[in-house]
């Protein structure tokens, strides 16, 4: 907590408000008082844990300024990352405002708001408008934006730590720059959960300076690792072994949230939980792929206190208050300390009681990872992987939306854009590239009318070439890409909607295949008009266990902590089964160290195996597998396949690796990457996202929504065309940049090579090591179809022909 500097006087509360507080028996928290006292400053950032009265701290100055009823028009804009959160805050704000008898009009405006109300809001804005980044961007693209926002005093950005991690936040910051140009007196307020680097968030919100107010972090959380009689399995991510213990915990608490890292894991766990739920405890499931109606049902039951537990994913990460949660269980290693802390904060919304959380490792290695995460939480050592600043596809969309609201000067817009935190360092040339792209589509596309969207007026300012295109640009506002999802419905004309699955997963299904969705087993029947039709299945085991979902990679910092943990002389804090395993590894080989790269080579099952302990996170280890096997193929080692985890990549093939150095030559790796990338489906997918955000591809055209398949098709053609004729096209540059840090995560692989700088410790062993063994059980093996398989096949065919006495048999 920061003490109030002496020059800032404490601000008195208006009578209605202070009376109300007294009547409730409440007093202001110190950070709420600070926020109020400093409310005249141009920017403030509040860092506070869940339950610390963040919302009230943000709104109190607004209520104070509006208390006398003398203000007319829009005073405060509140932005939240979730529609549901905006609605939730509206309810939570209306109660005290009514209690205080304040003459304040509060409304929300999201994608769910009826058009009639939206029109009325434009004509006659409320005092406080609660909205989302996308709805704000849309509102600002209207010609009458200056009038709507005239006189706006304050903007409150809630959950800014979450927004700052995505393009949605970047879009919002551009919109705030625009707002500041319209209303020079606008004050900014950011509300954030506990983060590793508050100053970075402050710069993001207001690059020219921002006061940081810290709330008392509250008591340390009560966090433990689940004790089970049975040791966790060697591999896998289901944590089925822990079901009885988890049920036991649910019985002993009022309401438990059971977090999972992926939707697939949540589905499987929920299914298994119900099979074991002999007491029929009311337990629900909640994740982003479920149908909205289903999710709302669970949310309502939760608020009403009807559920004893909810199995959930990141969809419950953000701050909606779902009632009296007294325990959070995290299944599987949390992968990032920051996420874990925020999830733990979901338990116990009372500010000064400790949150209670239990970590459940899903396999033996995760025992170590959970312990490392647990120690990080206790030391409040949060991790943050910095994002590249100022994505240019978002800027392109912003330029187009600006043009929708009216003509603009390039110089003015550039100056305005660089006032936004994430774009503070944007070079003029980069801005001009984006402007040129918006105007002409870029070199290879400039011959096509369709992509010529801006033109210069005689006075040098820019405007839409065809004013009618504004409608299409507005329809495609936003940076959230849920493109490749298909709806799932029960078969029949009025079949119940169940949720969504990835298009790629749908393509892999054949009629009759069964899978899990919303906790039930369904049978795939047919794909009709972009809807997956299914029927109920009575089986107890789904045939296809998983569908994809975002798999988080273990953060750099947590990986480092794990490495340091491994290098302790002994592990008194680890359960015996795991400590024994590590001792055995030390005896047979050695444990990976932070400053060198351990590589083990050993024969197993008649094949040469090599295990590379890079600790670079799942995505980078996967990329390493792809690039290393390419190189090994060139070296004639006949690689046959590999599998990657967050810690290591295990490669198997015909010939043993003698010298690993060539695999880690950065120049060669980059060459391999270049060749592999250009024809890569992941690149095409990234391109589709970038091209959609930048407005090259439209998902919505006059009310018709293109299917993912149609969008894929046209974006693939564009990708191939640009790749061939205009490889330096702006959108390809952006795509490459994003692919390298996203799923391909070459950046971390490069860091790994730099970190170990040639210090490779290659051990040749005569058998598989304890640390490598669990990798053999991992799912997600990638097979390499190369010379290795051909050689095995040739040997086998020659043998068969010889046995049949057909040695020299030619073909007729």
């Amino acid at each position: 907590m920061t003490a109030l500097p002496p020059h800032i006087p404490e601000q008195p509360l208006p009578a209605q408000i202070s009376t109300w507080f007294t009547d409730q028996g409440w007093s202001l928290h110190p950070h709420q008082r600070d926020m109020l006292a400093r409310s005249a400053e141009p920017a403030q950032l509040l860092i506070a844990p869940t339950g610390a009265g963040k919302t009230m701290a943000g709104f109190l100055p607004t209520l104070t300024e509006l208390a006398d009823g003398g203000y007319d028009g829009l005073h405060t804009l509140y932005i939240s990352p979730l529609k549901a959160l905006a609605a939730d805050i509206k309810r939570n704000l209306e109660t005290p405002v009514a209690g205080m008898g304040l003459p304040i009009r509060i409304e929300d405006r999201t994608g769910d708001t009826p058009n009639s109300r939206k029109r009325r809001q434009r004509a006659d804005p409320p005092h406080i408008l609660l909205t989302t980044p996308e709805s704000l961007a849309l509102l600002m693209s209207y010609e009458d934006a200056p009038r709507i926002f005239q006189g706006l005093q304050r903007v409150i950005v809630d959950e800014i730590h979450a927004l700052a991690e995505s393009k949605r936040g970047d879009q919002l910051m551009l919109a705030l720059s625009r707002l500041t140009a319209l209303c020079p007196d606008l004050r900014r307020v950011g509300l954030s959960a506990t983060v590793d680097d508050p100053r970075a968030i402050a710069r993001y919100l207001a690059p020219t300076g921002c006061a940081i107010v810290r709330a008392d972090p509250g008591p340390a959380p009560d966090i433990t690792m689940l004790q089970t009689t049975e040791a966790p399995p060697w591999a896998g991510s289901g944590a089925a072994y822990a079901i009885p213990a988890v049920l036991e915990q649910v019985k002993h608490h009022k309401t438990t949230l059971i977090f999972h890292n992926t939707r697939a894991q949540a589905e499987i766990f929920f299914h298994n939980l119900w099979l074991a739920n002999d007491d029929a405890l009311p337990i629900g499931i909640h994740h982003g792929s479920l149908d909205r109606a289903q999710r709302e049902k669970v949310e309502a039951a939760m608020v009403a206190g009807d559920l004893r537990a909810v199995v959930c994913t990141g969809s419950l990460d953000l701050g909606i208050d779902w009632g009296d949660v007294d325990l959070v269980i995290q299944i599987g290693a949390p992968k990032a300390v920051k996420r874990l802390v925020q999830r733990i904060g979901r338990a116990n919304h009372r500010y000064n009681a400790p949150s209670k959380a239990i970590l459940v490792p899903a396999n033996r290695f995760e025992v170590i990872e959970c312990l490392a995460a647990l120690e990080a939480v206790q030391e409040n050592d949060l991790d943050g992987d910095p994002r590249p600043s100022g994505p240019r596809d978002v800027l392109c969309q912003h330029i187009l939306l600006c043009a929708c609201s009216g003509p603009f000067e390039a110089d003015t817009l550039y100056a305005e854009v660089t006032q936004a935190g994430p774009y503070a360092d944007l070079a003029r040339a980069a801005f001009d590239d984006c402007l040129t792209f918006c105007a002409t589509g870029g070199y290879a596309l400039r011959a096509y009318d369709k992509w010529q969207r801006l033109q210069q007026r005689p006075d040098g300012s820019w405007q839409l070439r065809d004013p009618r295109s504004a409608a299409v640009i507005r329809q495609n506002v936003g940076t959230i890409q849920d493109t490749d999802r298909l709806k799932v419905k029960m078969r029949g004309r009025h079949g119940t909607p169940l949720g969504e699955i990835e298009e790629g997963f749908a393509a892999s299904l054949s009629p009759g295949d069964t899978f899990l969705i919303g906790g039930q087993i369904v049978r795939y029947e047919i794909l009709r008009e972009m809807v997956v039709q299914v029927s109920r299945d009575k089986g107890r085991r789904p045939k296809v266990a998983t569908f994809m979902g975002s798999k988080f990679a273990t953060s750099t910092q947590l990986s480092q902590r794990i490495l340091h943990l491994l290098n302790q002389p002994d592990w008194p804090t680890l359960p015996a089964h795991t400590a024994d395993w590590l001792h055995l590894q030390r005896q047979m080989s050695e444990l990976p160290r932070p400053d060198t790269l351990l590589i083990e080579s050993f024969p197993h099952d008649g094949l040469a195996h090599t295990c590379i302990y890079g600790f670079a996170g799942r995505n980078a280890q996967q990329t390493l597998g792809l690039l290393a096997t390419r190189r090994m193929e060139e070296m004639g080692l006949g690689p046959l396949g590999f599998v990657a985890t967050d810690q290591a990549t295990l490669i198997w093939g015909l010939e043993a690796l003698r010298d690993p150095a060539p695999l880690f030559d950065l120049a060669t790796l980059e060459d391999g990457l270049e060749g592999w990338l250009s024809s890569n489906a992941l690149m095409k997918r990234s391109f589709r996202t970038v091209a959609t955000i930048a407005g090259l591809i439209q998902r919505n055209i006059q009310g018709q929504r293109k299917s993912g398949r149609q969008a894929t098709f046209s974006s693939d053609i564009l990708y191939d065309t640009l790749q061939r004729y205009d490889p330096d096209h702006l959108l390809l540059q952006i795509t490459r940049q994003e692919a390298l840090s996203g799923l391909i995560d070459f950046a971390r692989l490069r860091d790994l090579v730099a970190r170990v700088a040639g210090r490779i410790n290659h051990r040749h062993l005569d058998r598989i090591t304890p640390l490598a063994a669990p990798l053999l059980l991992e799912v997600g093996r990638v097979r390499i179809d190369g010379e290795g398989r051909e050689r095995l096949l040739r040997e086998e065919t020659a043998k068969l022909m010889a046995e049949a006495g057909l040695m020299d048999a030619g073909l007729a």
Partner: protein
Amino acid sequence: MEAMPSGALFWPEQSLLCVSDLHFGKSERIARLGGAMLPPYDTRDTLTRLEKDLTRTKARSVICLGDSFDDSIAARGISEQEFTWITRLQAGRHWVWIEGNHDPGPLAMGGTHMAELPLPPVQFRHIAVPGSAAEISGHYHPKAQLKTKAGTLSRPCFLIDSDRVIMPAYGSYTGGLMCDDPALVGLMRPEALAVLTGDVAQPIPMPGRRSSIHDEI
């Protein structure tokens, strides 16, 4: 005639390339994990391989031995671009579509459409007729399995004996029937060979052929 490693059959004297079971328009299957390495469209992949074979053999005639199109999706699944591609391959070539059990009949696509094609001494048809001789057919998508150190590998294969050739499916990602299936064993002579497709064509004694069943008994 040459059984090519790609799964096509080449007859140099006639400058004729025969491919079977292309299954154009089968919905694209994007591989799940690590699928990055697979092309997103099977049709494009099949066409790329076909174009390569045509360029290498300089074949002037092409026979597509049935099931060239996957029934229901033929109209929707083939994109404008792929349609144009096929038309380009057809230019300057004699092109015969043999009818298969999947094909929806003659399509709005160039070339001759026939139920069967006699080209003495050989008969081209989609499904083998027991008892006939000098016959080239497809339909079954034969595959052979071999156990190796890297696990069991399976490859599409030609089945060849003195009476007939049963061709592998040329289309990408099509399923197949193992050649020890009774339907195939019944059609082929005991001394039949299976020729595996891949980098090079590799002959092996046909797995499951009748003689080896006798051996086991």
